[in-house]
């Protein structure tokens, strides 16, 4: 049985070959695309669990491709970038990526990231007795991962959903950055504050009536985040 279907998108043929061979070796089903346009075409006809997307490609670049995919799909996306700067990381996450890996990366690192991205929280929130959440004008349907705010419905990506689930299981309690990162992304994480910043912002845009003045997903300066659930 395949561990997952992965689409590798990179303009460098050697990288595609190396990754394909490595990933197939680890039990994944792998296809590859040379450009963003080709990847978009493929995604229309086939389904994948995860996309490894190079940020720097000719034509439709990685960021733009990621945005286009995100507008219609919640497939897991890991961006591959050559820059280690905070600006690039945030740009990748902002475009809708779930994670990113800096080139050159080691195979174990990449595999860990893929596992973390495909990894789902063991305990689904409905087990905790929550199926639907209706809070002042906001409706969150957990099984279908849909949030409706003021009549506008948006679907949460897997990671956004996991983050929200974790918050819902620990309402009205400040959760430290580190705890959140390790719970949602995995034990290898802990210092990636920019992940939380971007993902919390993305969640706010989907579930808050006024994302700039959040009423549910609150920031506790220095400490972490808190989900305010009115009793």
């Amino acid at each position: 049985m395949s561990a997952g279907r992965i689409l590798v998108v990179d303009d460098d043929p050697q990288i595609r070959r190396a990754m394909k061979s490595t990933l197939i070796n680890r039990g994944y089903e792998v296809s590859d695309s040379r450009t963003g346009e080709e990847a978009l075409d493929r995604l229309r006809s086939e389904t994948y669990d995860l996309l490894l997307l190079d940020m720097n490609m000719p034509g439709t670049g990685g960021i733009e491709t990621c945005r286009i995919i995100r507008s219609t799909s919640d497939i897991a996306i890991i961006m591959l970038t050559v820059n280690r700067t905070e600006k690039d990381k945030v740009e990748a996450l902002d475009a809708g990526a779930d994670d990113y890996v800096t080139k050159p990366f080691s195979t174990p690192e990449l595999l860990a990231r893929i596992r973390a991205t495909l990894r789902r929280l063991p305990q689904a929130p409905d087990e905790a007795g929550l199926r639907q959440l209706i809070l002042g004008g906001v409706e969150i349907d957990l099984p279908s991962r849909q949030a409706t705010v003021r009549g506008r419905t948006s679907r949460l990506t897997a990671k956004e959903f996991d983050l929200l689930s974790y918050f819902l299981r620990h309402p009205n309690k400040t959760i430290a950055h580190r705890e959140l990162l390790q719970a949602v992304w995995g034990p290898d994480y802990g210092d990636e504050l920019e992940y939380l910043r971007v993902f919390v912002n993305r969640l706010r845009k989907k579930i808050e009536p006024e994302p700039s003045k959040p009423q549910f997903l609150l920031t506790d300066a220095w400490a972490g985040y808190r989900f305010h659930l009115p009793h």
Partner: protein
Amino acid sequence: MRRALTINPPVKGILAWEYFEVRKRCSNAMATWPGWTNYSASKNFPQKVMRSTLRLFLALSLVATITLVFFRGIHVNATSVGFFYLVAILVIATTGGLLEASVSSVVAMLCFNFFFLPPVGTFTIADPQNWVALFAFLTTALTASQLSARLKRQRAQALDRQREMERLYTLSRAILLTDTAQPTAKQIAHQMAQAFDWPAVALYDRNTSEVYLAGPEAFPNVVDIDAKLRESAILSRVLHEETDDTLITPIRLGGEPIGSLAVKQAFMSDTALQSVLSLVAVGLEKARAQEEANRAQVARQSEELKSTLLDAIAHEFKTPLTSIKAVTTDLLSNPQQSLSQEQRGLVTIADEGADRLARLVTEAIQLARIEGGKFKLNRGVHFPSSLLSTALRQTQFLTDGRALKMEADEGLPSVLVDAELTQMVISHLIENAVKYSTPGSPIVIGALATERGVVFHITDQGPGITQEEQSRIFEKFYRGRVGQHLKGAGMGLAIAREIVRAHGEDIWVESSPGKGSKFCFSLPIAPVEPNR
């Protein structure tokens, strides 16, 4: 004379005594050649006298004709003749000048008396009533002449003003339309000479420190004019060139002299002169601002180019490295690959080589970015202990097996820094400590609050650094003598120093041979927010 009548109150920006000087100068010039004058006046001088003489002759002829007609031809009474004389004087006054009108008045009065007032043929007058008539005639004639002449003069003045305005307008348009093909000051000098028919103009632009000459004639002593222009601009004072009516005046903008102007025979009203100076000031300032904007744009473009180039290099180097690294790490990590001991060793060499190359590229790009000012500090408030522990985690792969001791008080004040860059500094220092000390020897990292901020320190028990070397280790590509054989490009400390300096702080080393090294750098304490 006439100039004195048109003097306006001193214009802002020119001192009163300078103003007086200018006025006196212009007055002197005007005294010699009345009316609107320019440099061509001197050439026209004999012509003007001839024209004046001709007009006087014509006026006197008119008086003589009337006398002849009424004395010899038509016989009318004396009063009628008097009126005819008056009409003639009025005609002369309106068409000619004051001189012709006044002379004609007196001559007409004499003719009237001699030929028409009894006893005819003498200058004596029998009837006292006729004295009154004669006096009334003379007064009327002279007054009419004066009035008429004044009107003419005012008209001429109005015309002068209008011409000045037109020229100023031409100049302002020309200044607005200056292009970038030539220096603006040069174009302005030409436009001034052209608009005001000035024989010679020299314009000194303080910004470029250049003097531009224009006009059909030349200054007799260009070197002298050059020096005086600079002097005028520096002292912000009006100067004169006594030999040939040259006026040298500073050009000021907001009270600051930004250049100076020398004009040969600039006979114009002071208001107009001040307007010209203001226009030129605005023109020069506009050019300076434009030039500054251009420079800023060029700098920005070159920064952008550099940044694009760095990104391209990073991409070009790291793409092949990525495939190498993917393969080597795959081979080394995959338990299914049945590599022999020897093969594993060879792949490890390739893997380490790829790592080293990747670090070199990263460091070179970091340094180029930081040195090119291509990084912005993304300052935030951070706890020193969390900065240290994050850096420690990031360098874990390097420090495996080493005794690393952290000495950071939890009660340390927060620092206002760019966390990413600060962690980079700590990582570089930890890496150096690991690299330059014997395996297994302890490394201590920590931070403490001092007067100058929070001082971070990384201490190793390596061979130490000599005094001579201490001054050089922060230089780019410098590597300690003991480290010649070690990996790295010698950029770590240079990068660390640039980052710390960007925070307005400093980095230093305390070391002596055989006693290990302690690298320290300070960071600014975050201001305490009252609501926290």
